[in-house]
């Protein structure tokens, strides 16, 4: 694996900020895009742009085919059994909102009553069932999340239980940022309908034992949702092996363009779930009285999708797969280990998140120094990191800190960059004390 060759694929890395070479270590927020991805999207607009699924003409057919092939590539990448189990969305947040809204309707609005028996590929009838309103609030609604979730995997569920009347249960974690699995099992005994958890925490880097957690969730009759925003670029994903019911991710955190991401769901559940956005290609037949919905996955893709970005996502997946993924993981782990070792020599440093199994990033604070100050100074040295609560305020509250400094890695980062990071943080902390 030749990092210099890889870096040539990422022109954005080759620049100076404030007269210093850019050291980009904010990959957990978004990764940079390789030329092949940029060119794929550009090419689409140069030669192929067309609205899909509707035209009988040549370009439309080509674009539709390309888009559907991209879906197949995503399915293959995460080993989904069927490509109709992949719904394209704008990303993790949209996927989670889709789930919270649609599952909320399915479980708690009496939507079940409106599902025709023997519901086939053609989806649901949306004609009012009449008894949806009579089901009313349900006090037994429980959604189980973990203490380390990103706001995107917290707020949609919280709003869902508030809307339907219910309760959010939270799996606690210890001081190292490791989930308490015993407490998890205890909470499962309260019979939540849905369990949702990050595969990898975006603040603590913890790799959660999701396979075991999914198994336990099923044992207690709950559906299992996995937030894969931070894992897709780094770890191999096999949704059949995991046996999760849903898996969500963002393209832009895995070398793909912004504005595209996905939701994997088991056919069985996607079929039962009602659509949550309406219009466009997601319908089957429409009259003023009644609408029937298109089959999977289209019933969840209302309106014109981001076709160019979906093609970029496919190219990003091919890009990732063009490397020996184990070798990439080894390289990224080595960067992480070197960063931790270098930073640990700094007086007063405290790592937030010290789970035995971590991936992709390191979060820390330094005694008496505000993360914002540290980030401001090292920015001037060309080092791009993230400071703040990383959209996980409850995690900050849990550790009693205002925020952390977070350095996160991608395949194109180098050991030299880790050295610059360590030097910059050392120098800044001397200045700020």
């Amino acid at each position, binding site marked *: 694996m030749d990092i210099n060759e890889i870096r040539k694929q990422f022109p954005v890395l080759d620049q100076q900020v404030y007269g210093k070479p850019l050291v980009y270590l904010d990959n957990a927020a978004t990764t940079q895009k390789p030329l092949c991805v940029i060119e794929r999207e550009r090419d689409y607009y140069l030669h192929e742009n067309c609205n899909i699924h509707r035209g009988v003409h040549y370009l439309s057919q080509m674009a539709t085919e390309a888009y559907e092939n991209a879906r197949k590539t995503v399915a293959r990448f995460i080993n989904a059994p069927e490509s109709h189990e992949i719904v394209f969305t704008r990303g993790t947040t949209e996927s989670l909102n889709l789930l919270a809204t649609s599952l909320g309707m399915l479980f708690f609005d009496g939507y079940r009553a409106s599902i025709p028996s023997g519901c086939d590929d053609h989806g649901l009838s949306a004609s009012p069932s009449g008894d949806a309103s009579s089901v009313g609030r349900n006090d037994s609604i429980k959604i189980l999340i973990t203490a380390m979730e990103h706001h995107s995997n917290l707020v949609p569920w919280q709003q869902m239980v508030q809307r339907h009347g219910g309760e959010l249960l939270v799996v606690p974690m210890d001081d190292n940022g490791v989930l308490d699995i015993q407490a998890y099992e205890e909470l499962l005994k309260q019979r939540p309908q849905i369990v949702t958890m990050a595969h990898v925490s975006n603040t603590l880097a913890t790799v959660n034992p999701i396979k075991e957690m999914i198994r336990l969730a099923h044992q207690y009759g709950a559906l299992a949702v996995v937030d894969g925003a931070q894992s897709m670029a780094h770890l191999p994903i096999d949704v059949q092996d995991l046996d999760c019911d849903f898996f969500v991710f963002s393209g832009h955190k895995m070398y793909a363009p912004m504005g595209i991401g996905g939701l994997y769901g088991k056919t069985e559940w996607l079929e039962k779930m009602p659509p949550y956005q309406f219009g466009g290609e997601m319908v089957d037949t429409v009259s003023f009285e009644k609408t029937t919905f298109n089959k999977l996955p289209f019933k969840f893709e209302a309106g014109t999708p981001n076709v160019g970005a979906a093609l970029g996502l496919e190219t990003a997946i091919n890009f990732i797969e063009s490397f020996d993924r184990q070798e990439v993981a080894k390289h990224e782990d080595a960067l992480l280990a070197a960063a931790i070792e270098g930073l640990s020599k700094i007086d007063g440093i405290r790592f937030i998140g010290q789970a035995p199994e971590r991936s992709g990033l390191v979060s820390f604070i330094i005694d008496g120094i*505000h*993360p*914002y*100050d540290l980030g401001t100074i090292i920015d*001037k040295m060309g080092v791009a990191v993230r400071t*703040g609560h990383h959209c996980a305020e409850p995690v900050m509250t849990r550790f009693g800190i*205002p925020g952390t400094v977070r350095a996160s890695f991608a395949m194109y980062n180098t050991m030299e960059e880790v050295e610059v990071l360590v030097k910059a943080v050392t120098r800044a902390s001397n200045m*700020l004390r």
Partner: protein
Amino acid sequence: MTIKEIQQGIIDDFSMFDDWMDRYAMLIEMGKECPIIDEQYRNDQYLINGCQSRVWLHAELKDGKVYYTADSDAVITKGIINLLIKVFSGQTPEDILSADLSFLDEIGLKEHLSPTRSNGLLSMLKQMLLYAEAFAASTK
């Protein structure tokens, strides 16, 4: 000294340093010397939430002049607050309201007052001017 003279003094101080590191070192020093808000005002009522760093601001009118005190949990933020306090404190509300703030540009700190920086400084500057406006109205 007039606001203009104070601003010129700050520009002169900053221009002694070519290196941004020295400028930030100076800002950090200024942060440590910020006139700190009285403990009784260091509460939510005087808090300006800027997402990443929190800022508390208080002002009072003495002999027709405004005096500010403040605090922040981030020292660079506090340094910039002190810079503004140096410029505004001890001036009349009218002078504060008509002040030109382009000196921040000249010393290369304007970016910190941009709306995209989630540090609370912009809201704090607005709050400083609001105090001046309220005092101006009350003395009319």
